[in-house]
C-alpha cells in the first residue's frame, strides 16, 4: 500500500500536469470547506444535508444531469474565451460584455431574418460570434496601439454593452415584459433527441457546440503555428518580437477570437425559449463565472470542459439544497475557489516540496532496509 502511494507520488512529481490538477482539486476542496463552515455557522443541523445536496444531489436524476449539461454550455464557452486570452497573456474580464453583444446579434437575426430557412440557426450563431468579436476587438486594438490596459478597457466596455444593448433591444426586438422577444422557431437550438434521453424539456445541443469549440481551441493552441505564436507572445512579448512575430497583431487577433467565443456563449444561451434576455442594469453573471472556469482549468482548453461541468454541477446542487440554504451560497463558494486558485502558484510549490520529501524519505527507508538484508 505504502509502495503504491510512493509510486503515485513519483508519477505526480514527473508530470507537471498532475501537480496542476492536484492544485485545482485543492482549490475546490478549500472552497467547499469554506461553504461547509458557513453552513455550519448559519444552521448546523442542516450543514451535512446541504453539503450532500451540493456535491451529490445532481446525481439523483437524469433530469438534473441534463440541467447541468445545458447550463455548462455558456460558462464552458466564456471560460474558453478567458482561457484563450490568458494564453496570449491577456486577461479578458470583458467576456460578459462580449456575451451580451453576441446575445443581441443572435437574437436580432433569430427574431427577424426568418427568410433564411434551414440556415437560420447557424447564421444566428455566426452573428453571435461576430458581435462578440467586434466587442473583443476594441480592447485588443486599444491595447496594441494605445497602450490601454485591456482589463480597464474591457470593464468600461462591459458597462457600455450593458446599457447600449438594453437600448438596442428596446428599439428593435422588445417584448413589453422588459425582455427581448424569443427567437423564431427556425433559429432555436434543436435537441437532437437529447431531450428524451435526459427527459428534460429545456435540453438542447448547446453543450455539443461548446465541446466542439473546446476541441477546436485545443487544436489551434497546441497544433498550429498560429497558436504557438499566440502562446509565445503570452510568455514573453519582447522575446516574441525578437523572433519576428508581429506581437501587436497577435494581441488583436487573440482578443477577436476570445470575443467571438464569448459571443457564441450569448447565442447558445438565448437562442432558446424559456430563458429570456432580460433588460437589467446588472452585468450577466456567466461572463464572470467564465473567469472562474478558466482559472480553475489553469487555462487548458480541455480542462475548461471539466471546470465548467463542475461549476454547473455545484450550481445545480445549490438549487437542490435551497430548502436549507439560499443558492447564492454557491456564488460564495465559487469566489473562494478562485481565491484559492490565485494561490495556486504557492500551492503547487507546496505540493512539489511535499512530493519530493515523501519520495526521498521512502528511498532512504528502502536503502536502510537493503543494508540490513
Amino acid at each position: 500500500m505504502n509502495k503504491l502511494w510512493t509510486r503515485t507520488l513519483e508519477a505526480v512529481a514527473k508530470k507537471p500536469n498532475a501537480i496542476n490538477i492536484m492544485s485545482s482539486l485543492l482549490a475546490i476542496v478549500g472552497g467547499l470547506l469554506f461553504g461547509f463552515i458557513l453552513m455550519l455557522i448559519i444552521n448546523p443541523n442542516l450543514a451535512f444535508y446541504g453539503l450532500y445536496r451540493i456535491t451529490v444531489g445532481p446525481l439523483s436524476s437524469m433530469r438534473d444531469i441534463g440541467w447541468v449539461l445545458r447550463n455548462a454550455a455558456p460558462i464552458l464557452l466564456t471560460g474558453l474565451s478567458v482561457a484563450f486570452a490568458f494564453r496570449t497573456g491577456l486577461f479578458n474580464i470583458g467576456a460578459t460584455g462580449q456575451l451580451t453583444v453576441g446575445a443581441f446579434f443572435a437574437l436580432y437575426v433569430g427574431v427577424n431574418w426568418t427568410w433564411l430557412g434551414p440556415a437560420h440557426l447557424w447564421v444566428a450563431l455566426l452573428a453571435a460570434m461576430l458581435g462578440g468579436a467586434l466587442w473583443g476587438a476594441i480592447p485588443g486594438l486599444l491595447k496594441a496601439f494605445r497602450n490601454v490596459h485591456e482589463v480597464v478597457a474591457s470593464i468600461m466596455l462591459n458597462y457600455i454593452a450593458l446599457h447600449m444593448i438594453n437600448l438596442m433591444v428596446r428599439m428593435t426586438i422588445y417584448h413589453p415584459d422588459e425582455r427581448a422577444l424569443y427567437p423564431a422557431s427556425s433559429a432555436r437550438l434543436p435537441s437532437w433527441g437529447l431531450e428524451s434521453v435526459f427527459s428534460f424539456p429545456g435540453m438542447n445541443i448547446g453543450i455539443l457546440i461548446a465541446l466542439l469549440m473546446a476541441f477546436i481551441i485545443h487544436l489551434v493552441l497546441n497544433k498550429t503555428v498560429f497558436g504557438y505564436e499566440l502562446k509565445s507572445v503570452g510568455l514573453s512579448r519582447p522575446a516574441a518580437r525578437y523572433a519576428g512575430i508581429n506581437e501587436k497583431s497577435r494581441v488583436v487577433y487573440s482578443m477577436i477570437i476570445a470575443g467571438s467565443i464569448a459571443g457564441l456563449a450569448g447565442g447558445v444561451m438565448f437562442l432558446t425559449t424559456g430563458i429570456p434576455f432580460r433588460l437589467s442594469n446588472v452585468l450577466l453573471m456567466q461572463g464572470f463565472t467564465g473567469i472562474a472556469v478558466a482559472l480553475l482549468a489553469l487555462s487548458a482548453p480541455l480542462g475548461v470542459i471539466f471546470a465548467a461541468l463542475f461549476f454547473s454541477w455545484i450550481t445545480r446542487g445549490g438549487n437542490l439544497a435551497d430548502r436549507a440554504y439560499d443558492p447564492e451560497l454557491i456564488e460564495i463558494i465559487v469566489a473562494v475557489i478562485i481565491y484559492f486558485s490565485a494561490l495556486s502558484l504557492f500551492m503547487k510549490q507546496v505540493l512539489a516540496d511535499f512530493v519530493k520529501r515523501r519520495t526521498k524519505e521512502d528511498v532512504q527507508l528502502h536503502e536502510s532496509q537493503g543494508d540490513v538484508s
Partner: protein
Amino acid sequence: MSEIFSDLSFAVFWYAVPIMIVLLLVSLGGLMSERSGVVNIALEGIMVMGAFTAATVIYFLRQADDPMGRQWMVLIGLSVGAISGFLFSFFHAFAAVRMQSNQIISATALNMFAPALHVFMARTYIRGTDSINIRTTYRITVPILSDLPVVGPLFSNAFLSTYIGIAILIALTIMFYKTRLGLRLRSCGENPHAADSLGIDVGKIRYIGVMMSGLLAGLGGAAYMIAFDNDFDGHVLGLGFLALALLISGQWKPLRILVFAMVFSLFYVVSSQHGSIGFLSSVNLPSEVYRSMPFIITLVVLAFFSKATQAPKALGEPYDVGKR
C-alpha cells in the same frame, strides 16, 4: 422635481459633490495600493463590502430615529464600512504580497465574493430579499455656515460623509507627499529593491498600502450607499471600476485625480439625473445613452492618456528578493 433642478448649480451640490467625494475616496484608496506596487481592481468588491456592512448595521440600529441619532447612525455606518473594507482587503494583500500570486486574480475573487455574500446574508438574515432597506433622509444642514454666500450650498442638505471625506483627502495628500510613510509607499512602487536595500520592509509597506486602500474603498462604499442607494442590493454599478479608471487617467497623482474626479462626477450626475436637470430633459436622448456616457468618456480619456503612462514602475510585480 424638474422645477427644483432647473438650476444646474443646485444639481451640482445635491448630487455631484457627494458622488465626487465617493469617487475621490475610492480612487485615492487605489492610489495608496498602486503606488506601493500592488494592482487593486478589487475596489469595486471592497466598496460593496463596505456598503453591505454599513447597511446592515444601520438597518439594525434604525429603531432610534431622532435627527441627532440619525447622524450618529451615519457615523457608525461609515466607520463599520471602513473597518470591514480594511479587513476584507487583507485577503488581497495576503495573496498579492505574501503569496506573490497574480494580483488581478485574487482581486477578481474579492469582486465576486462581496456581492454574493451580500445577497446571501440579506436573504438569510434580513428579510428574505436581495436588498437591505435603510430608507430615510440622511442629509444635514449646518446652521450658520449654510447662510454664507458662494460656499453656502455646500453646507445645506449635505452629507456628513462629505466633510469627513474632505478631511481625509487633505490628510492623505499631506501624508503621501510630506511624511516618511508616504515616501516609503512611493518608493516600494517604483523600485522595491532599492527600498529594500535601504532597510525598508517592502512586504510590510505593501500590506499597509493595500489595507489603507481597503479602508478608503470601504468608507467610499458606505458613503455611496448612505447618499444614493438606501435600498442597497449588492451593486455599486461600476463606481469602483470608474474610480480605478480615474486613478489611471489621473496618472497616479492626487491633484490630477481631483481634477478628473470633478469632471467625472459632473458626467455621472448627468447620466443618473438627466431627467431632472432642466435643459437636459428637453434634449430627450434615451436614458441608456446617458447611463453609458461616463464609461464611454472614460474609455476615450484612457485612449488619449495611456500612451505616455506614468504608472509606478513595479506595479503588479510581486517583490522577489532574488531578483535584486
